């Protein structure tokens, strides 16, 4: 089954693997910065609307 991997196939897999590693590093560095979710959006609107932040 695996014997059919030639040099071109190996090159493609290597390239995709390196791209994947680069994306993984990008994902790891941004893993702490989650996008604004609905609940935190509502809290922000409440805080601004009621002036609770002042």
């Amino acid at each position, binding site marked *: *089954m*695996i*014997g*059919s*991997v*030639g*040099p*071109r*196939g190996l090159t*493609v*897999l290597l390239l*995709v*693997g390196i*791209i*994947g*590693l680069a*994306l*993984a590093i*990008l*994902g*790891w560095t*941004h*893993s*702490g910065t*989650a996008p604004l979710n609905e609940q935190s959006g509502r809290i922000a609107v409440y805080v601004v609307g009621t002036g609770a932040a002042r």
Partner: protein
Amino acid sequence: MSKPAAPGSWATGRPKFPAPVPTKRADAPEAPEAAASPAAAPAGGLAAAADRAGAIAAEWAPVAGRILLGVVFAWFGYHELVQPGGWTQYVPFISESSSLAVLLVLTHGWVLLVTGAALVAGIAPRAAAAVASVLMLEIVIAVAMTGQSPTALRDVGVLGLAVCLTGVRQQHLVLRN
């Protein structure tokens, strides 16, 4: 597909019997029944067209299945890599806010991306399909453990496609060298 399929004809990727093409010799006399009923000729043409469509499907459907499965794997792999925080909830036994969960999602995403690329490009397609089957089994178990049964059931179908592709010996559009 009027003839019964021979065993193993699907696995080879091409039908054992070529699709019958209606041929007419120049010296052949006009068939009396065809002349008698005008509906007979379109029905024969329809059967031949159905046979031809069946032969094309037998040859190209595994390729379509393989590429589409690869696109799904690559899409999920990419999204797990760039936004791992959105996928840590599916990691069983480990806190979704932990770094280990993020690391596991990133590793999973990388394997998905590479497997997806192998499926799309046709690099060792049966081995890639076998890896895809194992991954899908793991995904089904992980999703079922989180209690999302409709999603798990849908993924069982994708697992079926991956398992099916492991048996396809001869395919088109593969990168052999």
